[in-house]
């Protein structure tokens, strides 16, 4: 019986939270990796793209709620998501047109594009603050729990409860569908193949008549869609706060680098690796050890939760030291 309790506790406190956080990181890292693969720079504005897009989704959600439209047990934000993505894509394409295209055509060094992305980051950060403010915003509605702790305890008779929030299930489902669609698009469709060809060898792709500007536009739209989805899921799961999205930039970069920058499959794997390590290292294992018959003195917590960035950072450094192109062999330009 105690083994069962331990398993439930691990599921409840480690596996489920880490899986949904990992899915959010994976979506974010996919965007970073696509931009790196095709446009060849690390986009520092990605975190603020997530924040800005999520702010738009929240505004649309409020609009829909005011009109009395809802999805029943599901959060209204899912309905607002496509509109948010479209609005945010228009803005991001605007920044490409006004900012990045110039440096691309001049073939500037990547670091100049990184700096330009810092400028865009400031801009989007300011706009997000201007539009929606700096407060904590909860915008999840509909049902909160799929399985609640009490129900689970009554059903199973175990001492340890399991809870599964609707937002966690949605995160996993939406992430799975997005990844499936993206990989299918990249491997099957003509545009997806063109994108991969352009990422692999720009000159060769240009020779074979691929329109680079179209590829670039497509990349921005896909990366924005992934970013806004990730941001909205993160906001539904925790809450929306503009500054939090700047802070998950580091785990996202770590995830993308761990998997190999420029490699979409690696980004997904990296997201889960970073999330599971973060949660495992900062979770106090005392409860589980007790179920398994040990009597530990301390909390058995390797690091306090405030240092979860440190985990991403350590993973990042270890990978950079031992396998600079990442676990799945990304590219290094």
């Amino acid at each position: 019986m105690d083994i069962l309790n331990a398993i439930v506790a691990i599921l409840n406190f480690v596996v489920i939270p880490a899986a949904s956080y990992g899915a959010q990181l994976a979506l974010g890292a996919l965007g970073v990796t696509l931009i790196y693969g095709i446009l060849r720079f690390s986009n520092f504005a990605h975190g603020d793209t997530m924040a800005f897009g999520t702010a738009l989704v929240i505004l649309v959600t409020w609009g829909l709620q005011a009109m009395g439209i809802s999805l029943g047990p599901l959060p209204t934000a899912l309905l607002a998501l496509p509109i948010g993505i479209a609005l945010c894509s228009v803005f991001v394409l605007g920044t490409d047109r006004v900012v990045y295209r110039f440096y691309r055509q001049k073939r500037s060094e990547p670091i100049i594009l990184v700096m330009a992305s810092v400028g865009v980051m400031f801009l989007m950060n300011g706009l997000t603050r201007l539009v929606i403010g700096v407060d904590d915003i909860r915008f999840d509605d509909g049902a909160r729990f799929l399985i609640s702790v009490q129900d689970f305890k009554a059903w199973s008779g175990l001492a340890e409860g399991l809870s599964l929030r609707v937002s966690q299930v949605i995160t996993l489902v939406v992430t799975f569908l997005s990844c499936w669609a993206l990989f299918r698009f990249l491997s099957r469709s003509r545009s997806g193949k063109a994108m991969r060809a352009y990422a692999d060898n720009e000159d060769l792709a240009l020779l074979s008549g691929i329109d680079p500007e179209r590829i670039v536009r497509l990349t921005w739209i896909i990366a924005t869609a992934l970013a806004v989805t990730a941001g909205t899921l993160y906001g539904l799961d925790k809450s929306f706060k503009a500054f939090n999205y700047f802070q998950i930039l580091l785990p996202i970069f770590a995830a993308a680098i761990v998997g190999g920058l420029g490699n979409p499959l690696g980004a997904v794997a990296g997201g889960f690796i970073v999330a599971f390590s973060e949660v495992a290292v900062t979770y106090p294992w005392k409860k589980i050890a007790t179920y398994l018959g040990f009597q530990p003195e301390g909390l058995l917590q390797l690091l306090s939760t405030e240092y979860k960035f440190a985990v991403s950072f350590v993973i990042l450094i270890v990978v950079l030291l031992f396998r600079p192109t990442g676990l799945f062999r990304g590219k290094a330009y």
Partner: protein
Amino acid sequence: MSNTRQADASSPLRAPLIFLLVMALFVLEGTTRNALFSGSWNSALTILNMGLISAIMTLGVNMQWGYAGLFNAGVVGFLALGALGPVLVATAPVEGAWAAGGPRVLLALAVGLGTLALASQVWKRVKAPLSFLLMPLVLLLGFVLYRYLFDPAVMAIEANNSASAGNIGGLGWPVLLSWPVGALFAAAAAWGVGKVALGLRSDYLAIATLGIGEIIVAVLRNEEWLARGVKNMSGIPRPVPYELDLQNDPGFVAKAADWGMDASTASAIWVKLLYAGLFGIVLLALILLAELALKSPWGRMMRAIRDNETAASAMGKNVKARHLQIFVLGSAVIGLAGAMMVTFDGLLSPGGFNPLRYTFLIWVMVIVGGSGNNWGSVLGALLIWFLWIKAEVWGPQLMNLVTAPLPAGSLRQHLLESAPHMRFVAMGLVLLLVLRFAPRGLVPEK
């Protein structure tokens, strides 16, 4: 990039003119009272002092980016380490804290560093299959030993008079001595980061430094034994007299009356002038050293490495070692600025160490001023800092003007309330415009 670094023929008057313009802004702030300026010397000098400290930060960043092309996105971290200097050196010792766990904490830190050093030696010396097993083992044992030593010591220190202290306390030495110590802290961290991350692609250095910056700030916020964390550390000693002492000094009050000021305004201004003098001396000394270094063979070598690494390394220059050197030097200067900033504020509040303000705004200053040019960085710092402060005042006024035709509803109210955030938008626009139309900055490198 190399073509943007080529010197165009630019007017020799350009730098002095922009310098005069910036001076005029400060004079206007001090003398005229209207919608744009406050007309108070107190306010002008406060902006100037923080501008001078920012100028030292930009000098540090400029050494890294302008001389060597290294993108450091963790300025806030090195600044925070420097800010630790005055807390650990100059504040008064805390009764009983050292006895509670001081030596044990030092021992734990030594064990931690020793573990890292041992692990890297094991990795280097031991042959491949065995090292995969041995290195993690060393790390694991070291970590357990470190926590075994560290945790009880920290609890003992934090339990000691936790309401008003709970930290390890300082040495009570003069505060000016703590400035180089702050620089040393930052330099030590930079050496560690540089050892690991330099030599990777430039983006990777940016991401690695972004991470180290976040971690250092997290440490400062959470390790209460070190500097009280978010409880803030106040009472950092001053190198200049206190306003109250001046107001109680009959000689000073008489002098203030001579100048036609009341004692409280005069004392505030006098203290700020003293600070400005102190910061100005440090800044000028740094510029002098930096300019001499840049004109020496060493400076020519650095620029040669920046402009063409391959050619420089073909000439036998050790690019990696030079990069490490300049990265450590630049970070030390940033650390120095951190120590000065905390001394000026008299307070360490780690909650305020925000990367947008202390990393990316410093970058805006460097780019706008002119990367590679020390005077340019200083001008950029003074100008951007002035605009950053005044944008909080000007933003709402502009918004008021723009939204005047709107009906007085909730939309107008919302726009007016969030207008101070316009400063972020403004800074983003300034950075983008300068990068695009004047990539070499207001005062380009010669």
